[in-house]
């Protein structure tokens, strides 16, 4: 919380700001466009959201933090809210230019994906993000089905960072109440 007060953490809560957008008073909206303006407009561009990201991450004078990180919790939700896949890809591209190249920071984005998914728009985003990403973490359940001691596996793939490094590493994990245990394949505590 202190990080938030110091301005180190800027948090945009989508659920809350969309309520403000839909049920908030008119005069509040007229002052500054809401980052989620695209929900109520027919032209679905994410410019307002990008502007919010840029103004939040641009260092202001003394309290500049080196190497900002942009965490996007669920790009797939943007599709559900009516943004077109091209708009989402444009948004992430602009963010890359600003955060990764101008401010020397990082972007972490979460996307849903499913092998037998019929959501073509979402798959388009997943595929093009895979193409642009430097590090991909795939988290999925075991192919053999549910297991009490191993809840799934993390595939850790690194792309374009060096020719011989493109091998994929797989770890299995087990989730407990408050933490997650990672281990090499076949080395779960139940087996050893």
């Amino acid at each position, binding site marked *: 919380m202190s990080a938030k007060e110091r301005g180190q*953490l800027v948090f945009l809560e*989508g*659920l*809350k700001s*969309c*309520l403000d*957008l*839909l049920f908030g008073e008119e005069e509040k909206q007229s002052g500054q466009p809401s980052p989620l303006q695209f*929900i*109520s407009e*027919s032209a679905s561009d994410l410019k307002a959201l990008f502007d919010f990201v840029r103004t939040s991450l641009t260092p202001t004078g003394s309290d500049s933090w080196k*190497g900002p*990180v942009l*965490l996007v*919790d*669920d790009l*797939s*939700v943007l599709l*559900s*809210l*009516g943004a077109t896949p091209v708009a989402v890809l444009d948004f992430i591209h602009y963010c890359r230019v600003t955060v*990764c190249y101008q401010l*020397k920071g*990082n972007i*972490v*984005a*979460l*996307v*849903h*994906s*499913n092998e037998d*998914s*019929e*959501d073509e*728009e*979402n798959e388009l985003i997943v595929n093009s*993000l*895979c193409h642009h990403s*430097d*590090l*991909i*973490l*795939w*988290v*999925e*359940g075991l192919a*053999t*089905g*549910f297991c009490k001691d191993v809840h*799934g596996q*993390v595939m850790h793939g690194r792309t374009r960072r060096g020719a011989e490094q493109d091998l994929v*590493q797989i770890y299995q*994990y087990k989730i*407990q*109440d408050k*933490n*997650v*245990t*990672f*281990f090499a394949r076949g080395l779960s505590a139940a087996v050893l």
Partner: protein
Amino acid sequence: MTTFEKHQLIDTLSKLINILRIKTININTVLLNEQSPFALNHDFGNQLIFMGNLIREISFYRVVKIQVGDLSNKKEKIPTILVFTEEDKYGLYSNLLFKYFLAEGVVCGHDLFVASAKEHPDNILKELPAPLLDDTYRNERGEETTAVKSEDFQDSMKIAWRYQNLPKVEASPTTSTKFGHYYDVSKTMSPELFQSIKWHSFYLPEELSLQPKMKTHNMNSAYSRLLQSIQRIIYQDGFDGSHPQKKLKNILRIGIQSLGSMLWGDDICSSDSPEHMHSLTKFLYVLRGLLRKSLSACIITVPAHLIQNKAIMERVTNLSDMVVGLESFIGSERETNPLYKDYHGLVHVQQIPRLNSLICDVSDTKDLAFRLKRKLFTIERLHLPPDLSDTVSRTSKQDLAESAKLLSSGCGAMAIGKKHLDF
């Protein structure tokens, strides 16, 4: 993997996971201590990290969101849930579950909000099942349990002694711990019970005539009316905690019937590339926001089998906390299948909420079936009926193996291929 790479991976994961508020992680038994949650700030290069499918499997997303929700209203620790029921083909059993949800609200003294485009909410409320008081319920169940218990005494097995010490599988998980109330579906609730509670209704044809014009925010107008109505009630009755002087805190139970059907003015059931493709998902997102900031829970039934574009259902699943699908056997070939002769349908639990924890409560069996007895609606673990015939093998064993294969994808070891074991 070289040591350097290993350290790099551990580093990456630990930073990532620290951000997502997990205290320690254990990779190859290397225990990492808690670092600053903002350790990701340095030496990471220009990397774009990207995680796929994380929501389903680890669901950091929900946990983080719920924690944030808790911080904003610390006084109440009741998490709000959006339950989503995929209707069975003829909507019989989903309606029953819908009424159960509302009836539980009446018995607990919660406020109700019923929205429908088909049936008038007043009629829905009139048809709620009557609660079974503790004594009556005991009598109902008592006969069954005593019958089972008397068998238990002569339990020393002579032939199948290997199975003697195996723990007993309870068909319905609710027998040991009592949770909620039980209802008699053959009777309707007495009107006196309604007098103690407050309820609101939303009947779409009436609402349309009340306010001819309103701002729709690029959404289907019926949905935005419903949202406005829910928001008004949440605000007026102080479910959002805006009246802290009001001491008595109550919960609002929202029930929305057959959302997404044609009657709501939505075309997702009639067209593969609908005009209002995003209306339903937008509605759910805003509703989620409303639920998150207030003390309320919501059940929605949706005719999932009518929705043409399957991508919508995937998105809807991601936007809800809990998704349950009902598959009734009426009119399907499973109705006559001997495997399912004791049941009326299957319950597919597709999503379970994780509340204030990283993990959800996962039961051992994933195959659940429901059955409507004379008075009770029960959900039980699916099991094969005992083979009591004198002949060695079942007549339709091949059929059974086939249908068991169809039954569950999670149970991979069972009935793979056409051959079955015969011993």
